[in-house]
Each structure stands twice: as structure tokens, then as C-alpha cells.
């Protein structure tokens, strides 16, 4: 487990390690929990408690793309609830579900920080504003055909994205 070795020197290492595992594998496998407990000198209950506390950590493999749709007040004021209904019916999934073809996992989120251009949706790490139902359909179709069509984090920054060991 090089991810554990690379990060265990950090103070408060559990969250950075969980993020790194999820980035690598897409979710936190049940089998990782006792390994992390041993490596970090924690109880399995401690590790389980952290994994289950945070909404972001998944226990099951997600679809190829994650769609986060904002449910918070600013987006509500611009029709987010109707957009959520549209997305659920279009993708035939409920929140936390994955489409039958494995393309998308749908997650609710409270605020993406795009509150002046509501409603907002994030597909993988790419943010979209003023998302009407039609615009959502376009974005979903584009993501299926070209997963990198909307990459917003420049390549030059993506290595910094992982952080630097200090």
C-alpha cells in the first residue's frame, strides 16, 4: 500500500489517505479499513467512524462519472428541485444511485459555490452554472462521448492538486 506509506508521516493522516484511496480506486473498500487501522495505530472502529461520517467517502464502486447536483437554497430559488426531478427521471436513478450502464453516479450536494449562476451541477471536477434541464441533457451526452470535453483544471495544476508532502 504505497498510498499509506506516502502519507502516514502526515499529522492527521487518515483523511488525506482516504482521499488518496478514493481517488485511486473510486471508493473505500471494506478490506482497507483493518489495514488502515493497523498502519495508523487506530482501532477499526475509529477508521470506520471516520469513513462513515463524511458524505464524500463512498463504500461502493461508483459509475465512470459522478454528477453532483446542488440542493441548497440559492439553487432552490432558481429551480433546483425541478432540475433534480428531471435528472432523476432522465438517468433513471435516485440519489446515490448509479445508472444501469455504469456511466453516472448521482449525488446531492449542498452548495458548489456558484450561487450567482444557479442552478449548479458538478460533473467529476467540472462546474456548470445556469443548468437548465436541456443544458443538463447536453452536458450528460457530451460527457458520455468525450469524458474530457469539459476539463477545467489545467494540466499544469493537476499535479499540484494532489498536494505536496511536507
Amino acid at each position, binding site marked *: 500500500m504505497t498510498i499509506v506509506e506516502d502519507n502516514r508521516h502526515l499529522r*492527521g493522516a487518515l483523511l488525506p489517505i482516504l482521499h488518496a484511496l478514493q481517488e485511486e480506486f473510486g471508493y473505500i473498500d471494506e478490506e482497507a479499513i483493518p489495514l488502515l487501522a493497523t498502519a495508523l495505530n487506530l482501532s477499526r472502529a475509529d477508521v470506520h467512524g471516520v469513513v462513515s461520517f463524511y458524505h464524500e467517502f463512498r463504500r461502493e464502486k461508483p459509475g465512470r462519472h459522478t454528477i453532483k447536483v446542488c440542493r441548497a437554497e440559492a439553487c432552490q430559488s432558481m429551480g433546483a428541485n425541478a432540475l433534480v426531478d428531471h435528472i432523476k427521471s432522465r438517468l433513471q436513478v435516485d440519489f446515490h444511485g448509479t445508472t444501469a450502464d455504469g456511466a453516472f453516479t448521482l449525488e446531492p450536494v449542498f452548495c458548489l459555490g456558484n*450561487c450567482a*449562476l444557479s442552478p449548479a451541477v458538478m460533473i467529476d471536477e467540472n462546474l456548470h452554472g445556469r443548468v437548465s434541464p436541456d443544458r443538463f441533457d447536453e452536458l450528460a451526452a457530451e460527457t458520455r462521448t468525450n469524458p474530457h470535453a469539459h476539463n477545467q483544471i489545467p494540466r499544469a495544476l493537476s499535479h499540484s492538486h494532489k498536494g505536496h508532502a511536507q
Partner: protein
Amino acid sequence: MSGHLITVFVPRDSAALSVGADAVAAAIRAEATRRDLPLRIVRNGSRGMLYLEPLVEVETPEGRVAYGPVTAADVAGLFDAGFLTGGEHALGHGLTEEIPYFKKQERLTFARCGIIDPLSVEDYRAHGGFRGLENALAMSQAEIVKAVTDSGLRGRGGAGFPTGIKWNTVMQAPADEKFVCCNADEGDSGTFADRMIIEGDPFCLIEGMTIAAIAVGATSGYVYMRSEYPHATATLRHAIKLAYDEGWLGDNIHGTDRTFHLDVRVGAGAYICGEETAMLESLEGKRGMVRAKPPLPALEGLFGKPTVVNNVLSLCSVPIILDKGGEYYRDFGVGRSRGTLPFQLAGNIKNGGIVEKAFGITLHELLYEYGGGTITGRPIRAVQVGGPLGAYLPPSQFDLPKDYEAFAAQEAMVGHGGIVVFDDSVDMAQQARFAMEFCVAESCGKCTPCRIGSTRGMETLDKIIAGKNVDANLTLLADLCDVMVDGSLCAMGGMTPYPVRSAVKHFPEDFRKKQHAVRVTHIAAE
């Protein structure tokens, strides 16, 4: 202008990206190549006029000229209109700094945001960057703390605690190690100022944190970012790397004996981690459970050590205070609310964005003079001020001056300066229910009034909305709200009742819709 490359600015702020800024930048580059016109594209932060994004600017001898909102399809037309020399076009707004929305603001914290290349140390320095830190490096710890105290700066995260007093406590605490932690867990709906400044002027935060560290004697610090802000996280991490490379972070900062190491940690989608003690638990790698206070984090914070915990905007206000002096900053504002606050106009608003103004401006000015009313063109019925734990206010309250005390007197809060606008199609009983539902989802579960109270509150509101025993249930709801306010450990349970109570108080008719409908049906049946 021969031999001088024309500079075009296309923002890299994620709000601008969310409406196609990358495609616009690519189209400008392609069109310039096609026409054999050499130009330089700078990816700046946002000017904060989000309703105009993507806002393209062109450098001219008279100043920067603005065009927006621009789509990739508009680009060829802009070239035809001679936008590279500031030519007229339907999307043109003239000089950016003469646009009334921008011109009337008082930009202190956001002075550089949208102007510079966020990842150029050279650009940052050319616009006054690191001058505050240079001054601080030549000052004693007590002198730095005094400058911040004199400025009257209060925490911009919502609670409004005087920053200088907090720093003084940490400075005086004896310890072998101290920390500076920046709370960048900007989870309140309607707020995006932290994200914008981190993406648009990240060195400002790094400078503010380094000054704080020198002032209190801390050698390590963390920025706690939201996982919902991947772009801001990438930008900040890159900026920190550049600051290390240039000797503004690390051991012996610029040849002095001061040391400060800074790292970024990312949360994992828990709203409660915006509460400072929950954030500290999360930084320690634990569940984000709220701690009882005392002990104050200033004395026993991260890993049990004295810790400064400040919001992004508080820390970003520090460089200018150390550059121009505490008095300069204090001269803005009213009463005990000094300086400026970047207000954020959000939701159903025509001209959404950042409006940095001195305290004392009214909601009415913000909503109509800057915001231009709703985007749907319908009347504003309610605004929620200060995030999901803030009160809903009706138009009759729009003349309240925005300062901490005037708002507190109305059981409202200035908070982080976020203002979410709703038109007359809003159902306030549903909004009250959502406040409880949000607390159910986000409570850390440590104290009973918050964990159980929110669930009972949601159930009671469901009954009220369904028209069942409305009077009795409203009384029960009021009682439950009292218990949550008085008995919760932190603001999560303690303030969730604010939006609920204010909705009931100002919009009582929305809680009796079904009751009336039920009564009418009964009468008809008789």
C-alpha cells in the same frame, strides 16, 4: 503599439468556467491565429460581476475594456468589431472600472482579484503584494497584533469575533508549538467569496496566514478546503508551491529567522466542519464532531496546541492592514463594524456577484441598486441572509443597515455576507422545512437538541404543511425552536431555528395554506 503584445483577460474563476470561459479563451486564441494577430491571454480571477461572466477584458492605453457575457460564438464578431483596440460591440461595457456596479464598490480585500494573474508572484508584487508581510517581518509580535486590533477587524466567517483579541490570546499562550488554521470550508449556500479570492488572489491568503503566524509565534499552518472546491484547491496548492520556491514560505522567510510551513487539507463533504472545533477534529483526521468550549481553540486547538482559526476573508484582510495601517482600514464602516465586507448577491437575482462595501449599506441598496431585482422579473418576496442558518427577511426589513449589531437585534446575522434572493413563487413553509432537513443531514450528532430536535422539527413542519392541528403544531414548533436555540452545543442546532422562526413570523400565511384548504373542503361538504 508595434512590438507590444495586446493583452486579453479571460477569467479562470470556476464561476466563469461554469458558463464556458475555457471555450471562449480557446476561440479567441484560434481566431487570433487565423487572423495572424499576436496577442497574450491572461487567465485572471473574476472581477466579481458574475452576471457578466465570461467577462473578457482587453488592455488599452485608456484602461481595461470589458465585454460580456461572451460565448465562443461571439468571438469572431468581437474581432470584426475591433475589440482588441476597445471597439464598440453589443456586448461592450466600456472601461471595466467605470461600470457602475464595480465603480461604486470599496475594494480592499478584493483589490487585486480579477486584475492580476493569480499564479504570478511578480504580478502580485507589482500590485502591492507582500508589502504587509515585509512590514510584519520588521515588527515585533505585539506590534503586529496591535495593528490588527486597531483596525477593528472582526471574524468574517459569521461570528464576528474581534481578530486582534483572538491573536493576542494565542500570542500570549506559552507553548512549544502553535498553529494557524484557515477555515475555507465555505459551506453556506449563497456564499462564494472565499472560493473567488482563493482562485483569484491566492497569495493574499498565504500572506495573511504568514503574518498571523509571525504575530502569534506559530510555525505551521493548514488551510482546510472544501472537497466541493477542486479548482480552488488546485490553485491554492500551486500558489503555495510558488511561494515556497520564492522564499515567502518555509524556513527563514526572506532571510529572517521566521519560519512558517503551510499545507492544504481537504474536507469530505460535511457542513459541520465549518464549525471551528469540528474543523480541528477533521484536521486531526477524525470525525468532524464539535468540541465543547472552553477550552478555546486559541489555548487548546489543533493537536491540543494554541491555534488561530480564522476565516479566509479575515486572513485576506490582514495584508492591507499591515501595508496601510490599522487606522486606514478602520476608517471604513459604522459603529463597531469596521472595514468592508464582500457581500455576495446570489440566487434569483439579476446582477449576481460580489459587492465589497463598507458596513452600513442597506439590503435595499444591495438588492436593487446593485442586484437589479430578480432575474425572473417577479417581485422579491424573501431574502435569506448569512447562509442556511440565517433568518429569512421580508421586504419590510430591507432598510436595515448591514452591520453586526443591527442584524443581531433582528435575530438575523450578517454572517459571511451571503444574500440569497427568492421571488414570490417561494413557499416559505417548505423553506422552513428545508432548514430542519438540512440540520438532520448535517448535524454531527453530539448534542441531543440538534440531532433529535431537527428530526422532530421536520416531522412537525410536515404536519403543519399537511394542515394537521396547525395551531397546536406551531406552538410545539416554537417550543422546540427555543430548546434548540438554548440547548445546542454550537451554531448548527443553535441557529437552525432562525430561518424557521423568521419564516413563521414574517410569512405566517404560508403555514396555513392547507389548513384553509381543508376548512373550505369541510364547509363545501356540509
